[in-house]
C-alpha cells in the first residue's frame, strides 16, 4: 500500500473520531470540543466530551482495530476469505466466557480472561467440528462449523440467563447485540491492553502468514512451522476477541469486511493488511457507532445490528464468489 493511502486511512480515522465527539443528542461545534479537551467550557460540555463521547469513540476504535486485525490474520492463516472472529464462533465463545464471569460476579479484569478461555474453547470446537465434517481445507465447511459453534454459544448464554433478573437480561441482550454505550476510561484501558498485545503479536507473525497463505506444504518447505504459527494466530485472535467482546459484546462482520477493503486498496503483504485492517476497522466501528446513536434519536440502535446491516450484503457477495 502506498504512503498516500496510509495517510488517507489515518485521516479517515481522525475525521470520524472528531465527528464522533461532535455529534450526538447534543451537537457540539469543533471549537466547543477543543475547549472541552483543554478543560474549558461549561460543566455539561466537559462531561459530555471527556467522560461520555471520548471514551466511547476510543473504545469503538479499539474494538474495530481488534476485530479488523484478527479477521485479516485469520483469513491469511486459514487461506479463507470468509474467516473472522464472529463467523468462526470465536467471539461467541468469548461471550460465553464473559457472561459466565459476569454471572459469577467476577471482578472486571477477570471478564476478558474468562472470555479468552471461552474463545480458545470455541476455536478448538470449530476445528474439531470442521475436521469431523471432513473439510478443514474447505472454506465453507469451516465457516459452517464456526456458525454452528456460534449458535451453540448463543444458546448457552440464553440458558445461563434463564433464571436471571429482568434488568440483567435486558443488559445482557443489549450486550449480545454489541454496544459501546457504557464506555468508560477503565474499560478503554483494559481493552487497549488486549488490543495492543494482540495486534503486536499478529504483526510479528505477519511474514509467516504471508507464506502460510501459499499453502501448508509450501509454507513448510519455506521453513514455517505450520502448526505452531497457526496456533499462535488462533491464540492472538482469541485474545483480541476476548478484549473486544468484554468491552463491547458481539460486533460481527467487521473482521470479514475490513481485510477485503484493505486488500482492494492495494495491500498485499500481511503486515500491511493487518496494520491497515486495524486502522480501517477502527474507522468503520467508530462510524457505525455514530450511526447507531444518531440514526433514530433519541433511541440508540445496537452497534452489532448496524455492522451486520453493512456486513451481510458484503458477506453474500463473497459467498457467491466461492460457490
Amino acid at each position, binding site marked *: 500500500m502506498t504512503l498516500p493511502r496510509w495517510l488517507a486511512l489515518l485521516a479517515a480515522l481522525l475525521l470520524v473520531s472528531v465527528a464522533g465527539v461532535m455529534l450526538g443528542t447534543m451537537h457540539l461545534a469543533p471549537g466547543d470540543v477543543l475547549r472541552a479537551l483543554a478543560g474549558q467550557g461549561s460543566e455539561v460540555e466537559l462531561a459530555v466530551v471527556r467522560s461520555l463521547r471520548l471514551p466511547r469513540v476510543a473504545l469503538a476504535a479499539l474494538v474495530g482495530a481488534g476485530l479488523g486485525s484478527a479477521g485479516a490474520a485469520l*483469513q*491469511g492463516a486459514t*487461506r*479463507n*476469505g470468509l474467516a473472522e472472529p464472529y463467523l468462526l464462533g470465536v467471539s461467541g465463545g468469548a461471550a460465553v466466557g464473559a457472561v459466565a464471569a459476569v454471572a459469577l460476579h467476577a471482578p472486571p479484569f477477570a471478564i476478558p480472561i474468562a472470555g479468552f478461555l471461552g474463545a480458545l474453547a470455541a476455536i478448538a470446537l470449530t476445528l474439531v467440528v470442521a475436521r469431523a465434517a471432513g473439510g478443514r481445507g474447505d472454506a465453507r465447511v469451516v465457516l459452517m462449523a464456526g456458525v454452528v459453534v456460534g449458535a451453540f454459544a448463543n444458546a448457552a448464554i440464553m440458558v445461563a440467563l434463564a433464571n436471571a433478573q429482568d434488568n440483567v437480561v435486558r443488559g445482557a441482550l443489549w450486550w449480545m447485540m454489541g454496544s459501546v454505550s457504557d464506555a468508560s476510561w477503565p474499560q478503554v484501558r483494559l481493552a487497549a491492553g488486549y488490543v495492543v498485545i494482540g495486534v503486536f503479536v499478529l504483526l*510479528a507473525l505477519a*511474514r*509467516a502468514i*504471508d*507464506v502460510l*497463505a*501459499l*499453502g*501448508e*506444504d*509450501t509454507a*513448510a*518447505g*519455506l*521453513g*514455517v*512451522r*505450520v502448526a505452531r504459527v497457526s496456533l499462535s494466530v488462533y491464540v492472538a485472535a482469541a485474545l483480541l476477541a476476548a478484549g473486544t467482546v468484554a468491552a463491547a459484546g458481539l460486533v460481527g462482520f467487521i473482521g470479514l469486511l475490513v481485510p477485503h477493503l484493505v*486488500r482492494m486498496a492495494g495491500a*498485499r*503483504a500481511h503486515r500491511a493488511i493487518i496494520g491497515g485492517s486495524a486502522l480501517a476497522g477502527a474507522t468503520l466501528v467508530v462510524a457505525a457507532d455514530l450511526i447507531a446513536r444518531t440514526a433514530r434519536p433519541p433511541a440508540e440502535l445496537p452497534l452489532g445490528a448496524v455492522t451486520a446491516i453493512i456486513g451481510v450484503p458484503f458477506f453474500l457477495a463473497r459467498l457467491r464468489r466461492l460457490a
Partner: protein
Amino acid sequence: MIQFSHVSVLYRGSRLRALDDVSIAAPAGTLTAVVGPNGSGKSTLVRALVGQVPLEQGAITVDDQPVSDARRSALARQVAVVTQREEPAFPLAVRDYVALGRYPHLGLWRGTTSTDTAAIADAVARTEIEPYLDRTIAELSGGEWQRVRLARALAQGGRSLVLDEPTTFLDIGHEMAVFELLGRLAADGMAVLLVSHQLNLVARFAHRMVLLHRGRVAGEGEPADVMQASLLESLYDWPLVVARDPAVGAPALIPLRSRPRA
C-alpha cells in the same frame, strides 16, 4: 546432497506403509529422479522432507545435517521445495511472490538486504521470468507459473532443490524448458531431486533414477538400468516395450495396447 536413509512412513488409519525402508541419495551436481506408479509414495517423500508427515523410522539429512522440526528455517536455507500443487489464497504480484523465497533468511522485523535483492535477481535471471514480474499470479499461464515457482525456490539460495511433478499440465515446449533448466541447475552443482511421471524425459535428462513401487525401492541406477521393459511392465501393470530414442539415444518407453484379459 539430500539423503533418505531407511525411511518408513505410516499414515494414521492406514495399515500399509506409504514408504517402507526407503533409501535414496541425491548428490550435488546430479539430477536424481524418483519415478513410479500412482500411489507408490513419491509425494510422501517430499512431504516427509518438509516435516508434514512424521517418520516412523529412518532419517533424512540435507548436507549431512539431520532434518528436524527444530531447524526448519535453517533447512529451508539449504533445500528448496516445489510441491505438486500450490494455489496462493490471495492475489499476489509475481515480484512479491518470488521475494517470499527469502522468508527463511529474514528475521521477524528486518527489511530485505542487498543479499536478498541479489538472490532474487539471480533467480529471476536463471528462470527468465523478468517479463512477468509486474503481473499477478492469476494472470500467468501454467508454464509461466511453474517457472515463477522455480524462481521462488531458487531465491531461497540453497544448494539443493526438490520438485514434485513440476511439469504437470505443461505442453511439450514448456515441459522441455523446465527439464533443460533443471539440467543446467544440476550442471551448476546443485543437488536436484525430481519426482516425475514423465519416464521418457526423466530417462533423457536424469543422471540417476529411483523406481518406487508400493512404498519400496523397486529399482535404481542409471536410466538404462531402470528402464527395463520387464520391470516396468509388472510395476505399471501394462504391456510396453523400451526402445531407443532415435534422436538422442536415451531409452524410451512405448506403451502397447492392453492385452485381452484371460
